[in-house]
């Protein structure tokens, strides 16, 4: 904590609150039928997107998952663009074509959320290939859940990144479950950092609900990758406190006690409390952010709701680019 300037703390906090309030807005909108299809929220995991993206530049590339609203916001997609996208409006970051699982904003380096588990790992590795070939110091980041670890994409992607020394940061968000399947059922070896080391990556595990720790570790790993010493992997231990997806029941596979215990480790209040106790930031400063973001999200929802629907006549555009 002491390592971070108040500005960084406030920035992490702002991002996390933005994600949280957006997600809560989206959850209500889903219940109200304003959002269709799949909607996986990031509530409880905000520290990871916030902490990792804090060290990234706009021209770094992030590849995300089905649970990608947080990554999108942390990378610079605005709440207006995000909510409008889930509302299916032309002003959404994918013009309403994508929805929750297909958020794209290449302008700020959000290279896509994905409805297919595992692909983010491979595409980020490919972006690393581009950046190495183009001789830049850009890096790419793959977010993925514990569920992707038992998928062949994990194996093939990590291996290729390792043998080619690609500037890729792999961020595994281990929230204990893939839908309702526990991670320790899906594999006999839940130590993802050790497994990554087995492929030749620099890797470490950390508390994914501690924004400061995430930010510190990510900062080092990003630096490593930027200096050509990648790839690297960080495992963030965390928990989603809402159901797997909006509209799904949440019973049977986990206990209320477990959920409550993790709620105690809420990344947002933790950051705030620690910083206030350490005297780095005042509570008023945090409260001001709460207010600022609440207004931002209200505005974003209004913006989304008043945005036009995409023109059906455009539905078949852009299947192909040009071939000269």
């Amino acid at each position: 904590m002491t390592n971070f300037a108040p500005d960084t703390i406030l920035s992490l906090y702002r991002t996390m609150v933005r994600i949280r309030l957006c997600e809560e807005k989206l959850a209500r909108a889903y219940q109200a039928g304003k959002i269709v299809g799949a909607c996986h929220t990031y509530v409880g995991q905000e520290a990871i997107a916030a902490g990792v993206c804090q060290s990234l530049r706009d021209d770094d590339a992030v590849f995300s998952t089905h649970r990608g609203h947080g990554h999108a916001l942390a990378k610079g997609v605005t709440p207006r663009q995000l909510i409008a996208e889930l509302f299916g409006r032309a002003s959404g970051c994918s013009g309403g074509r994508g929805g929750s699982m297909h958020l794209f904003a290449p302008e700020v380096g959000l290279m896509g959320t994905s409805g297919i588990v595992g692909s983010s790992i491979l595409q980020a590795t490919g972006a690393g290939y581009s950046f190495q070939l183009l001789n830049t110091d850009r890096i790419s980041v793959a977010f993925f859940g514990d569920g992707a670890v038992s998928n062949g994409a994990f194996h093939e992607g990590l291996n290729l990144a390792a043998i080619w020394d690609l500037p890729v940061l792999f961020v595994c968000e281990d929230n204990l479950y893939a839908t309702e399947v526990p991670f320790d059922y899906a594999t006999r070896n839940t130590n993802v950092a050790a497994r990554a080391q087995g492929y030749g990556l620099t890797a470490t595990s950390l508390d994914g609900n501690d924004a400061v720790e995430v930010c510190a570790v990510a900062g080092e790993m990003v630096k490593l990758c930027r200096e050509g010493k990648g790839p690297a992997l960080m495992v963030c231990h965390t928990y989603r406190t809402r159901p797997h997806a909006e509209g799904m029941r949440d019973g049977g596979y986990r206990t209320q006690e477990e959920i409550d215990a993790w709620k105690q480790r809420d990344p947002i209040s933790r950051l705030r409390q620690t910083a206030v106790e350490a005297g780095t930031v005042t509570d008023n400063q945090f409260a001001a952010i709460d207010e600022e973001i609440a207004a931002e999200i209200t505005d974003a929802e209004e913006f989304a709701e008043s945005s036009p629907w995409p023109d059906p006549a455009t539905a078949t555009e852009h299947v192909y680019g040009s071939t000269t």
Partner: protein
Amino acid sequence: MSPREISYTDAAREALAAAMERDPTIFILGEGIGERGGNFNTTVGLYERFGPMRLRDTPICERGFTGICTGAAMTGTRPVIDFMIVDFILDGVGELVNQMARIQYLTQGRLKMPVLIRGCFGIGSGYAAHHSGNYYSLFVNIPGFHVVLPTTPYDAKGLMATALRSDNPVIYLENKSLLNCRGPVPEEDYTIPFGEAVIRRLGSGLTVVAVGAMVPLTLSVCDDLASEGIEVELIDPRTLAPLDLSTILESLAKTGRLLVVDESFGPCGIGAEISARVMELAFNDLDAPVRRLNGEHTPTPYSPTLEAAVIPSAARIADAIRNLAAD
């Protein structure tokens, strides 16, 4: 006493449960098909009856469990792969096409390949690009698969029962929009042969072959069209491989006109195959060219306004029928 009505999903599950009761070599692999009962309730209650060895939750490794089921079928068991959403099948295409579909052939039939592959498909409800796929044409193209698309609870049960007696890999596809539809389903076990189409509506004006959810959608416009004087004969092929061409040809002999309605992609789709076959076999019966109405040739967009623009709607189906009638 009016017959019992149950849902499509319940009907399919009834056949599955009966088969599992009868045949102890049946087991099911998939994500969330154990205690959870399947994301689409495909296996609700079965875990309690048949236990964890026969309903096995998998990690997310579609290629892996497709390959595993291939090996299992080669060694005396009858696997069921529950893909949940059928788009996920694409990661297993190598195992399906290179291995599963070819081993009966390569062993001259000394090995059988009794695998049931099921998954929910179709465009609608904002499932968007990665969860709206329709890949049946691909499996019709490749030799070795049966491709089955039940459209009623009755057929869901009877075709499932047949699939679970077949020596062959069966791709059993459930349209998401039909899962909750209800209809009469006998309690006793029965089978429906593959390759037998059913005529959903008799008519002498023109013939429509509809696929999957397009069957009830087309049916919904037929009465209106009848009031305009267009009598549609509606055929539900029920299985695309094998395909019951005789029923289509008989109808065509009567009507002279044929439209294929399929929400999936047109190029090299099942409509193209039906069209080409019909021309080859019954050129002289055709009073007009066979027409196809397909979804647009694009990825599936999310927004309701865009999504509606890429699939055949009731209105577009009616128009296509009117145009063909006037052709």
